[in-house]
């Protein structure tokens, strides 16, 4: 039995099952322009952009053999009309001609673009989508040279506030129904529908209802034009001014794959990055709003408490103070607190420091809010790395146990976790100890600090997180600190302006660089003052260490994670690692 075959632009390809033609073409790395089709949703075939010519070989009814013409080629019966490739199922022997090999197909694709553009406002210069707009891109590639549309365009509502986070410009809408299908098929909120008829069509919510779907911003991503825009991000930046850096959503335990979009050391927006096993093309709105965490309310420069007030302290003083405290305090009175909100590497560094100073294994309390998950991309777990803490071998304690331990300790070294803000601790538990708090953002917990040390966020360092499904995935640095340099750090992404602009084009101010260091950096230096050799250089090197020391992380490295889109760790090895 031979494989099924299909001929596309004269080339033979093999296939199994019943693939859809457009997806098959895209999977081959070939191209046919399209708008309404989305691989994760049903195909309404309404944009009519993906038209191709399709034919099937004629078979002799009796023998079942292909009929051949005089030259011995198969006789092809072409469909009388062009077909939309997005909803055409490939059949054995099918012959397909795309715009690459057929003039009529080229013509039809150009015609459809001419129609779309007829009533499109063509306001690309002020449109957020410009630069990442499928309509713009496909018009350049397949569209007409100019327009023959000399009559009046249709006018539709502009600036419609569909919900708290999404703004619609109905004139730009090309009516592909992706947004409507998203709320029907993916988020299942059924909040959007198309109203009006014909060229007056546009999507809205039912009267009096708000588009407050917790996944609403995904419609902005999949809208193939600038009709749906993020209310927050609107008019903030042009796409080509920003750098796009792969990262992980750290606002809950699901670990959605994301991109951080930065300009001048500010994270301006967060969008989902495709991962078939984690988040597909989607992410919750909550994870996007977290971009503020990277820019605002940051702890910058160390501080020390003098008579109940935190005052600025030098880095040297901070190191000295921590070293002194560790030296002075009886080992059994020292409590290291790890954090499910911090990365594997940071928690590992904390463990190393605790171990080498002879203190007990760090403890941590998971941050779970029962019932806040939705079985989709929001988990009950509010932290990105509880599983990582477990696998590393940190001691998991309940809030009650944490309270007791904190009350009994005399020196507390706490890693980035707002234990006071999230209700694990209150002021009564904090009284006895000297608090060394490592934090990226100001919180109730940083207010308790006797020594406050600013550390980097997931946007500033490369580090790993283990999600609720035990998948370890990592971030890349997306913005500089006072002490890092984009151009020297090979990990940092380059934007268009980096490649093609002058040095004055972007990233020119120092204002948005935070005065902070990676936790492992500080830990290593503090260790040196105590005569301990932690030797923690960066995330990559730390992960290599972890992999050799902890069987749960065997085989994990930045190389393997990058190659495989993260690695699912075996839960059983937890026991072995202890």
């Amino acid at each position, binding site marked *: 039995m031979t494989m099924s075959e299909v001929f596309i632009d004269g080339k033979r390809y093999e296939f199994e099952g019943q693939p859809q033609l457009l997806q098959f073409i895209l999977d081959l790395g070939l191209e046919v322009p399209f708008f309404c089709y989305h691989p994760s949703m049903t*195909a*309404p*075939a*309404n*944009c*009519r*952009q993906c*038209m191709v010519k399709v034919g099937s070989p004629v078979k002799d009814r009796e023998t079942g053999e292909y009929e051949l013409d005089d030259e011995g080629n198969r006789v092809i019966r072409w469909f*009388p*009309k*062009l077909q939309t490739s997005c*909803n055409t199922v490939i059949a054995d022997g099918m012959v397909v001609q795309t715009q690459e090999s057929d003039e009529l197909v080229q013509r*039809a694709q150009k*015609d*459809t673009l*001419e*129609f*779309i553009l*007829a*009533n499109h406002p063509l306001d690309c210069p002020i449109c957020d989508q410009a630069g990442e707009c499928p309509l713009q891109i496909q018009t350049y590639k397949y569209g007409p040279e100019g327009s*023959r*549309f*000399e*009559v*009046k365009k*249709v006018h539709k509502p502009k600036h419609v506030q569909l919900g708290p986070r999404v703004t619609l410009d109905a004139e730009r809408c*090309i*009516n592909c*129904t992706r947004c409507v299908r998203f709320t029907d098929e993916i988020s299942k909120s059924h909040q959007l*529908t*198309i109203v*009006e*008829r*014909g*060229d*007056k*069509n546009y999507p809205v919510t039912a009267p009096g209802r708000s588009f407050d779907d917790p996944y609403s911003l995904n419609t902005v991503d999949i809208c193939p034009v600038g009709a749906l825009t993020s209310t927050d991000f609107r008019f903030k930046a042009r796409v080509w001014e920003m750098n796009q850096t792969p990262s992980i959503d750290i606002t809950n335990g699901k670990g959605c794959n994301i991109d951080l979009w930065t300009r001048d050391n500010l994270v301006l927006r967060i969008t989902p990055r495709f991962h078939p096993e984690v988040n597909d093309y989607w992410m919750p709105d909550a994870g996007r709003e977290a971009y503020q965490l990277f820019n605002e309310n940051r702890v910058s420069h160390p501080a020390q408490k003098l008579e109940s007030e935190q005052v600025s302290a030098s880095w040297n003083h901070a190191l000295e103070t921590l070293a002194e405290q560790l030296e002075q305090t009886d080992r059994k009175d020292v409590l290291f607190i790890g954090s499910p909100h911090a990365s594997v590497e940071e928690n590992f560094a904390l463990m190393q420091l605790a171990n080498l100073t002879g203190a007990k294994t760090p403890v941590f309390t998971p941050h779970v809010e029962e019932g806040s998950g939705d079985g989709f991309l929001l988990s009950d777990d509010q932290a990105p790395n509880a599983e990582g803490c477990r696998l590393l071998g940190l001691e998991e304690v309940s809030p009650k146990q944490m309270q007791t331990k904190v009350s009994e300790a005399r020196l507390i070294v706490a890693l980035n976790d707002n234990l006071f803000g999230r209700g694990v601790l209150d002021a009564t538990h904090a009284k006895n100890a000297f608090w060394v708090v490592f934090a990226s953002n100001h919180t109730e917990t940083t207010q308790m600090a006797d020594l406050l040390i600013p550390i980097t966020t997931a946007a500033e360092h490369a580090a790993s997180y283990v999600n609720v499904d035990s998948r370890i995935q990592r971030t890349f640095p997306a913005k500089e600190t006072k002490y890092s340099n984009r151009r020297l750090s090979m990990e940092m992404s380059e934007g268009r302006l980096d490649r093609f602009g002058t040095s004055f084009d972007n990233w020119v101010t120092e204002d948005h660089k935070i005065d902070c260091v990676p936790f492992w950096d500080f830990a290593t230096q503090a260790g040196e003052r105590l005569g301990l050799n932690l030797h923690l250089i960066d995330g990559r090197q730390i992960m290599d260490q972890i992999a050799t020391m902890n069987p749960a992380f065997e085989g994990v490295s930045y190389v393997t994670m990058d190659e495989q889109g993260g690695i699912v760790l075996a839960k059983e090895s937890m026991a072995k690692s202890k």
Partner: protein
Amino acid sequence: MSQSDWRTYKPVLIPPVDNLHEIEVYRKQGGYEALKSVLTDKKRWADPKSVVDEVKAANIRGRGGAGFNAGLKWSFMPPADGGPRYLACNGDESEPGTFKDRKIFEYNPHLFIEGAVIAAYAMEITTIYVYIRGEYRPFIEMMRKAVQDAYKNGMLGKNILKSNFSVDMVVASGAGAYICGEETSMLESIEGKRGYPRVKPPFPAQKGLWGRPTTINNIETLSCVPLVIRNGADWFSSIGAKNHPGPLLYGISGHVNRPGVYELPSGVPVLELIEEVAGGMRNGKKLKAIIPGGSSTPILRADQLDGVTMDSDSLRTAGSMLGTSGMVVMDEDTDIVEVLWRISHFYHHESCGQCTPCRDGTGWLEKILLKIRNGDGETRDLDLLLDVTTQMEGRTICALADAAAWPVRYTITRFRDEFEARCKKSVHALV
């Protein structure tokens, strides 16, 4: 009966019987006898399939516009699997120039109900939907009353005429969208959704209402069914035109002395219809053109009408289509530009807006025509109009785009002089 015998034809769809809409009167006229025969005469009708075969042999060509053999369509239904199966009866009747199904709702609703129940039996249907355009408020009420009476008389509901066969009938109405006459759009509308035509395949026989096997027929199509059962397929197929046989409701409108709906055999010569049936041209004016079967069918000039008869073959040869046999007659004073603009306005207004070529093409056509009508057009606009129709035809989900494109294409090609006379001469072409 041959085609020339239309003058002696006796109406059977809407016969001149007083109060025929009342079920008692209808029954007295032999109504529901065909249904009774189908349900109880096991010698004549061994099984549902025998009914399908008879209807297929009669060759009732769909009266909704596409002219598909009704019995053949019924035979596409997959075997019954115990789940629900539907018949959706299309009474949306929104194509301009078409006003025939309303006569059935008004004068002979039980003929239609009987036909639908027979069809339901033949296809093992469990529920019948009757979809009537929202503007037909009085006829919707009439149909509701007729359905109630049919239930009371045991013609609908459980164990019809004491047989094992049961079927329900629901009267549903649209909200005034032409597109809901397109069969899959109608299904969406019945399901309570927006009237967007569905992508085919899957076809309704596989996945129709609520994903279940469904057949869609026009009201007039189904009304022919009891006649076929009563008198036989041969009787039916001997009426009128050979390839498009049977009684036909002609809706004649426009510049004639007696516009109206006339029941005659198919295949009546166009000119005889105008002169003899519709009482000739109003005010003794000369005939200029006709649109034979609803506004989407290509217009024919008076000089194209010699010997043309109202059936699919003859009209195709002449360069048009039978459509819904709703004929619009225009006299010599008719402003063709105005006519075409008005038709284009309709299709622009009624495009559902799913498909790009239809959504933006229908508006473009109308706007250019409006420009020409207002005296601001240029001759190059006529070529642009033809280009736009080419860009729309055959590239959409349903046939509305074609229905919008054809009138433009054929009206301009058949009356180019009149259009050019309204346009300024272009200095250069649009490229």
